[in-house]
């Protein structure tokens, strides 16, 4: 009997993530992520990581390029090592290392849709700013070692990828991406802002625009690659997300039997609320440490914060929730081991401490503002 009830809790959690409002935003987001991977020129970004690029250019580019370059977590490390050893140096390299996993369009969209627009926006903005701050601090702390390094390889960064220069006019590419983003935003907008009929009509027209652009300006191979990349991403992320959400529901169901006065939807939240529930600095720090240690598959951090720790049921404050979302994707115990190997233990330790402390501080400030 109990086993069936626990199983049902898992299904209930799953149902929440398979509901229409989540799917309408996730499906376009996967298409956009696929389009970014295939159509956005990586060459144009990489050239800003050379040793002679001005710092005020390389830092923001590093902090933002996570969205464009870091489609696969395994490409982050070679890029990081190259930027660190032969390019712009430890500062922009660390900014990139942090921002790569932290700002991907899928994670931001899911956060906004499931946990709320305020925390989704806060997550996107503070991840970018944090990347720059962490990079600058790393560059400052290790400035002596950096000064000794000889830097030469601007050429390496200029001619990196083998992609062909695309012949499309820039406004077509822009129109293409703007249409995709509009489909996402309008499709996901609550029907209290836009009624169903005009919404469907607008999405229909936008889809037509995208199709026309694809037919006239993109080759068949490009469209095929886009489809392949989108499907590849979906296949990689969605099954793990759904299994994870199911397990989160089941953990809640089991915990409900051990925690007095709790029901399955908030059991863990009730249990941990005294430690990471409030908006005080201690809760934020603890949440940030949990996020840094715990391995969370892409997107599952949203379910962990929302369902498991109880942000959605109001048991966890906005502060610790944001702290966990910021420290979470960039760090985990396995990734710490790899980063230590690549950076050396001294730099790695400083990096980990910086991420944990700054994530906690940003969460704390957000908690004070948003409550």
């Amino acid at each position: 009997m109990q086993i069936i009830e626990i199983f049902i809790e898992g299904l209930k959690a799953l149902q929440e993530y398979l509901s229409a409002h989540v799917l309408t935003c996730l499906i376009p987001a996967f298409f956009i992520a696929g389009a970014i991977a295939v159509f956005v020129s990586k060459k144009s970004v990489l050239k800003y990581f050379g040793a002679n690029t001005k710092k005020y250019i390389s830092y923001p580019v590093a902090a933002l390029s996570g969205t464009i370059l870091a489609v696969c977590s395994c490409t982050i490390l070679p890029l990081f090592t190259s930027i660190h050893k032969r390019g712009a140096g430890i500062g922009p390299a660390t900014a990139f290392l942090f921002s790569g996993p932290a700002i991907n369009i899928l994670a931001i969209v899911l956060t906004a849709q499931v946990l709320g627009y305020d925390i989704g926006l806060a997550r996107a903005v503070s991840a970018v700013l944090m990347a720059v701050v962490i990079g600058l601090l790393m560059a400052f702390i290790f400035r002596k070692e950096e000064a000794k390094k000889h830097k030469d390889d601007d050429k390496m960064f200029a001619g990196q990828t083998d992609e062909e220069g695309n012949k499309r006019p820039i406004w077509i590419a822009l129109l293409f991406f703007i249409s995709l983003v509009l489909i996402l935003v309008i499709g996901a907008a609550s029907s209290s802002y836009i009624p169903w009929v005009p919404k469907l009509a607008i999405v229909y027209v936008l889809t037509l625009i995208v199709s026309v652009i694809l037919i006239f300006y993109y080759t068949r191979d490009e469209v095929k690659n886009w489809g392949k990349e989108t499907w590849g991403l979906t296949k990689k992320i969605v099954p793990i997300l759904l299994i994870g959400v199911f397990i989160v529901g089941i953990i809640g169901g089991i915990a409900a039997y051990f925690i007095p006065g709790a029901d399955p939807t908030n059991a863990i939240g009730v249990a941990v609320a005294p430690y990471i529930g409030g908006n005080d600095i201690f809760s934020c720090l603890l949440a940030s440490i949990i996020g840094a240690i715990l391995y969370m598959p892409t997107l599952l951090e949203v379910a962990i914060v929302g369902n498991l720790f109880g942000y959605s049921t109001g048991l966890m404050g906005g502060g610790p929730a944001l702290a966990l979302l910021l420290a979470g994707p960039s760090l985990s115990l396995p990734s710490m081991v790899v980063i230590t190997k690549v950076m050396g233990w001294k730099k790695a330790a400083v990096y980990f401490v910086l991420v944990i402390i700054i994530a906690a501080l940003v969460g704390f400030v957000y908690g004070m503002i948003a409550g």
Partner: protein
Amino acid sequence: MKIEILGTGCPKCKATEKIVKKAVEELGIKADIVKVEDLQEIVNRGVMMTPAIVVDGEVKIVGHVPSTDEIKKLLK
């Protein structure tokens, strides 16, 4: 002919290896296929985006999983 596949062991790199092996087999040519997984070694080749394919010391493909046809064209 020596074909090196550069990658840290992620799914995309493994996919690349499979495709290269298939292409070599279909062409019926003799080639040594070597996997390079060491990060320093990859970076020393001047490669930042994996998977990458190096043919006889020359970097040919960087940053994406190639199709079988692409490899065949490379090897001819």
